[in-house]
């Protein structure tokens, strides 16, 4: 295995350089420790370390409520992922179509959904649609916009995958007498999927992040449940810290999984 760049860069330092490195290393560690102490001290002097702010984390009800919120987050994310994978495929087929009548509208829809903030789409479902008589549940007010804007991104990811499949595959399949649809669904798309699975999984991180907007429409996901906890126990800092840590853990897990999938399969 080849060495990493920094290993080469700082390889075989002299005795003096090694001593300097060690000293600076120790100083950095001390500085970081000092920073941690300052943060803890800030918590302490603001009274945030006192028991009433933290004791309800010892109760099972708190955690089951947070778990319910996390479940709401995952339920919305999963549905948004399903919508985006399916709709993304439809948009991709339109995008790759030879008919201008299909291709141009698909490009327009993709650019439009990709180019507008998810939050703006959520506001449309939340504020604008009810005024024209369309009433969605809070779950759909959150999930639908996320699914739509992710679908456009997924369509582009699919396209990158399809373009990465060698042309010879298409030519060979055609010369075997497969129809255009067979060529796409049995030859090109399955291979494209293998290239882009890491990118698709990484997209899931963005979906999970977007569900944080659930509190805008008061859908019971993690952030919304955190707000309820705060209202009940008047404990802002600890609850937000724990919730932020939960989000980081979930997304870190997904990122790591996508990196693992990204390793070559041979």
């Amino acid at each position, binding site marked *: 295995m*080849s*060495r*990493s*760049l*920094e290993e*080469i*860069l*700082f*390889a075989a*330092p002299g005795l003096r350089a090694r001593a300097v*490195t060690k000293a*600076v*290393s120790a100083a*950095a*560690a001390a500085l*970081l420790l000092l920073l941690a102490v300052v943060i803890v001290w*800030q*918590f302490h*002097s*603001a009274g*945030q370390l006192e028991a009433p702010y933290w004791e309800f984390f010892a109760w099972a009800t708190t955690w089951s409520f947070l778990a319910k919120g996390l479940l709401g987050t995952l339920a919305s994310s999963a549905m948004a992922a399903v919508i985006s994978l399916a709709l993304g495929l439809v948009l991709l087929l339109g995008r790759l179509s030879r008919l201008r009548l299909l291709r141009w509208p698909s490009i327009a829809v993709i*650019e*439009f959904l*990709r*180019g*507008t*903030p*998810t*939050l*703006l789409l959520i*506001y*449309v479902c939340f*504020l*604008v649609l009810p*005024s*024209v008589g369309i009433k969605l549940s809070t779950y759909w007010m959150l999930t639908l916009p996320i699914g739509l804007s992710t679908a456009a991104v997924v369509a582009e990811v699919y396209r990158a995958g399809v373009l990465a499949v060698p042309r010879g595959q298409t030519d060979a399949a055609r010369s075997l007498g497969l129809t255009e649809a067979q060529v796409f669904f049995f030859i090109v798309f399955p291979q494209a999927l293998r290239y882009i699975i890491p990118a698709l999984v990484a997209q899931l*991180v963005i979906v*999970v*992040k*977007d569900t*944080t*907007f659930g509190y*805008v429409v008061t859908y019971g996901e993690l*952030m919304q449940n955190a707000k309820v906890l705060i209202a009940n126990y008047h404990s*802002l*800092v600890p609850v*937000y*810290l724990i*919730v*932020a840590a939960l*989000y*980081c853990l979930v*997304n*870190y897990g997904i*990122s790591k999984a996508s990196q693992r999938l990204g390793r070559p399969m041979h």
Partner: protein
Amino acid sequence: MADHGPAFWQALLLTWKLTLVSFVPGVLLGVLVAVLRLLPLPPLRWALSVYVEIFRNIPSVALLIFIVFALPDLNIVIDYEPSVILTLTLVCSAFTADYLRAGINTIPGSQIEAALSLGMRPLQIVSAVVLPQALRSVVQPMTSLLIALMLSTSLASQLPFPGRELTALVSKIANDSALGIAAFAVAATMYVVTGLLIAWAGAVLEKKVRILR
């Protein structure tokens, strides 16, 4: 709808401003983090890895809410607009550091060996050999990051700013009148056009600076 014309231009300008003032320091901070992570100082490397993972994985809204509503309980009060900028800067810096790391990894080790054998010092190599090439190779992801950051300025609509950016303006118009759809269409067009402009500028820059290997 025509009465809202000036408001939309102001909102667009605020969106652009928020994007720029968080992108520039975010990138600078990201470059600094990426360089510091190269140094052979294990505690620093560890702390910066934690920094990058936290701000890459935390939802921006959660970070913004923490800065605005939780930090005052720790006796740290930051005004609304700086809070949005700080949130976006931190997130931007983490992604920049991550992309640069990937860019740095594309540089062949033999170049470093060659530079060392010329007698260059490690930090000289970083600034003269590693960084220029790494920066050139990350134009595309940085363009996407800038677009994502521009869209993320919609977060500002969650705070009671005196000025309104595009998303806040749409939600206000939709609340006050029946012009919601029209307002949405205008704002969406402004976002899409801005995004396409950034993508175009990124593509031009990419063509200019890319390294053909």
